[in-house]
């Protein structure tokens, strides 16, 4: 049923324009990196309270999205959704691209990136970070292997694809646990942080796949059956509802224990409440669901694109909310007391990102974009004609 895989024609001026633009972003990110290297992190908006800022939001959002990008592959390899089998190569490749983009930002924002070799030589196995390094490396290997089997040795695709699927669940639990295991921070500390990150990865990975697939097919003048987009729309709806469910359970449990009243009230009504209500809930869940469930908008490719774009924005807002709110809420060193000091004890933190951080983050996106572009240009990642198997129809429409 799958037509020939093809490379996307690279002679189009638009392709080269895009390459140059993305290259420009990477160049600017390199400049920002050296600027921060030379003058120190004082030129960023990060401070002694908000020590992880915009670069980390970009990095973690991309890493979370990377594991979700594998959805299309997993759906076909493991869940036998045959209509998506043709996107398996695209899916594994996109996961690698996003992973590299995210890791690059993380690496370039270290206080001492020159010591990366040390980080590879000394592993502290009690550190969630060390675990994540292993998980990311393993995930990348598995994705590349998965990709290779799809090209060369399809009899292994199922087993490698299953391993990659399992690995990505562990991986995203690991990413969530960077926060979840931190006992000292009330906003972070929770056993449900890992699963919530998984749900967010499922939704954002599906959303970014929809956006890229539709855009690529359109730009390259290739053909894609709309039913495929609507099939993915349904998956996206399910994943968004899953995110909503996890968020609800977390708030429910936390509001049930008086120890969390203060911090939860602060999250929902404090200075960063806009990020939660506006970014995570409204832009990231309610608005895309509203569009996707709408019988007019939800049944157009444009509508699904809008829903997907909002879901991606929502993912960034979610990561930003976890990170910034988590760090801004003041440590409660003396419960029952008001605290003050020259080190701003007792005060909520403020954080305003600066240009170098934004440029660094966008540089990571550009790296992922470049890898993607080169991939579709030189590897046969996409079917020439994306059609559905005979007799298959979208099981549900709004």
């Amino acid at each position, binding site marked *: 049923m799958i037509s020939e895989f093809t490379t996307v024609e690279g002679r189009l001026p638009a392709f080269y324009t895009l390459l140059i633009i993305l290259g420009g972003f990477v160049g600017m990110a390199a400049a920002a990196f050296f600027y921060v290297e030379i003058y120190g992190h004082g030129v960023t908006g990060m401070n002694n309270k908000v*020590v992880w800022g915009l670069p980390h939001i970009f990095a973690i959002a991309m890493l979370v999205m990377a594991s979700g990008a594998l959805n299309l592959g997993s759906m076909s390899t493991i869940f036998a959704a045959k209509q998506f089998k043709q996107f398996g190569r695209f899916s594994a490749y996109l996961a690698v691209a996003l992973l590299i983009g995210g890791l690059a930002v993380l690496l370039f924002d270290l206080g001492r*990136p020159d010591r990366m070799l040390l980080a590879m030589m000394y592993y502290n196995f009690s550190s969630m*970070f060390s675990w994540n390094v292993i998980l990311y490396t393993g995930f990348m290997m598995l994705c590349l292997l998965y990709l290779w089997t799809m090209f060369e040795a399809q009899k292994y695709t199922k087993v490698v694809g299953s391993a990659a699927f399992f690995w990505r669940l562990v991986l995203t639990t690991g990413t969530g646990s960077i926060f979840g295991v931190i006992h000292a921070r009330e906003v972070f500390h929770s056993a449900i942080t890992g699963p919530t990150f998984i749900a967010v990865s499922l939704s954002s990975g599906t959303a970014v796949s929809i956006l890229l697939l539709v855009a690529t097919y359109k730009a390259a003048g290739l053909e894609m059956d709309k039913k495929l987009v609507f099939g993915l729309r349904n998956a996206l709806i399910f994943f968004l509802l899953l995110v909503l469910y996890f968020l609800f359970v977390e708030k429910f449990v936390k509001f049930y224990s008086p120890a969390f009243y203060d911090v939860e009230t602060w999250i929902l009504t404090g200075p960063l409440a806009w990020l939660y209500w506006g970014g995570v809930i409204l832009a990231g869940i309610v608005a895309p669901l509203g569009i996707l469930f709408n019988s007019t908008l939800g049944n157009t490719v444009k509508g699904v694109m809008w829903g997907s774009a909002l879901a991606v924005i929502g993912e960034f807002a979610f990561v930003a909310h976890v990170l910034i709110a988590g760090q801004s809420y003041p440590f409660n060193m003396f419960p029952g007391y008001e605290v003050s000091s020259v080190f701003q004890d007792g005060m909520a933190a403020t954080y305003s990102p600066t240009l170098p951080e934004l440029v660094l983050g966008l540089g990571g996106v550009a790296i992922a974009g470049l890898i993607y572009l080169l991939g579709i240009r030189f590897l046969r990642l996409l079917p020439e004609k994306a059609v559905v198997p005979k007799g298959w129809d979208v099981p549900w429409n709004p």
Partner: protein
Amino acid sequence: MTMDRRSVLGLGGAVAAGVALAPGVHLIAATQTTEASGSSRWAMLIDVNKCSSDCNACTDACRKENNVPLFGDPDRDIHWIRKIEIRDKEGRRPTVSLPVLCNHCENPPCVHVCPTAASFVRKDGIVLVDKHRCIGCRYCMIACPYKARSLVYFPTELPADGNPDVPIRGKGVVEKCTFCVHRVDAGLAPACVEACDKASEGAMLFGDLNDPTSEISKRVREVATKAIREDLGLKPHVHYQGL
């Protein structure tokens, strides 16, 4: 202040550890400094009743001793030890002023999370950062509930009246109170404790909890002491009296 000199002598190879922290000595620092004798457990006891709110002798002395700069940027200044004021929300107690520093926790989350093991606990309980191994990821700052750690946000240099025996603070790495490990290894008390004594406040006591005859051991047996956020299970080793 008092520090039990007998136990200091017992530290054996620990002086070498002080040398290892000196500038120019590189990656091996962590291994050497963990070789301090395990027979001591250094701790601090702070009597908040003796600590007056207008005294900053400890924080000033720490800055001078350890070349800890002030950048004039409250968001990014480095504080190894800071004075905190706490006010009872219900007004049942007068405002209390006390110094807060790294608690040299028995179960330090900063050490657990550090990916390169740049943060480590010496056998005598002093928690240190090997600044030549720290990659500046700042995860330790996220994990420490006492806000005891600061990233060095700007390049620094040795101040005119700085201490040449202690390295300058390293840009891009995370640093914090060392309990003045170089002094402890030389049989001296931390600079803050000495300064507190000189200022006739006498609020800070430093010593070896493993030595039952040390003054700090006796005091923690005799008076009620508390640590900050004991509920977190980190077993902090800065104890407070009168909190």
